């Protein structure tokens, strides 16, 4: 099972596009990539979840940890997600109130 983690730049934001399944096996790789970005001085990060097929609470933990890390640098982590089965995980856990969730990378970087 592969997890894809591609980084591009858009209007001063680092856009991390995640593809595949995020679970207890792949989450460490995802966490490391986010930490690398922050270490490289990227404090404005969009995590694009449109290519994610599956995300469980370990993935949520990585995102919460990433947001916390970025806020400590006065930065931000915002999400792109329109898939109902992924959004549902955020809704059930109340994290829709913690994250800014957008329907496209364009709208995320303009927010």
């Amino acid at each position, binding site marked *: 099972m592969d997890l894809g983690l591609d980084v591009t730049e858009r209007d001063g934001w680092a856009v991390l596009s995640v593809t595949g399944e995020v679970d*207890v096996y792949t989450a460490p790789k995802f966490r490391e990539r986010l930490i690398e970005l922050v270490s490289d001085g990227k404090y404005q990060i969009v995590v694009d979840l449109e290519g994610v097929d599956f995300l469980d*609470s370990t993935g949520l*933990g990585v995102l919460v940890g990433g947001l*916390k890390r970025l806020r400590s640098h006065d930065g931000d982590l915002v999400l792109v997600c329109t898939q109902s089965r992924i959004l549902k995980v955020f809704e059930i*856990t109340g994290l829709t*109130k913690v994250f800014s969730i957008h329907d496209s990378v364009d709208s995320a970087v303009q927010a």
Partner: protein
Amino acid sequence: MPGEAVELEIPARAEFVALARLAVSAMAAADGELADERVDDLKLAVSEACTNAIEAHSAIATDKRVVIRCWVEDAGLEVRICDRGGGFDPLGLPDHPPVTDPARLKFERGLGIPLIRALVDVVEFSSSGKGTEVRLVMRHGDNNGQHPAQRG
């Protein structure tokens, strides 16, 4: 456990959680009685329960396996995830601060069990010092497209 049950024994390692959820979702798809969205809910609940099982084994450094049993009854699909970890108190889980509280960001873990409870129709935890069994049931004929938390 009915004769048609499928039993899967996995090494207690992270890379095998995907196999467990795939097996259960394939079983649910073959049953054909649950809407796709409810199969996804079950798949997520199985993933959460298996993750906890693996972490429980890791905590006591045992190389025993985690057993997943799944079968179909008239009333629904049942899955049991059995580990031989150190057990836990399902009622003793800490509450998270409200999501609007900045302290909420201190909690990167502990979302698995609330998710399981919200996603499936029946959840039971039986835990002792010898291990934990999680029983999950998705009822047939309840395919109204909402997860249990929304049904009220």
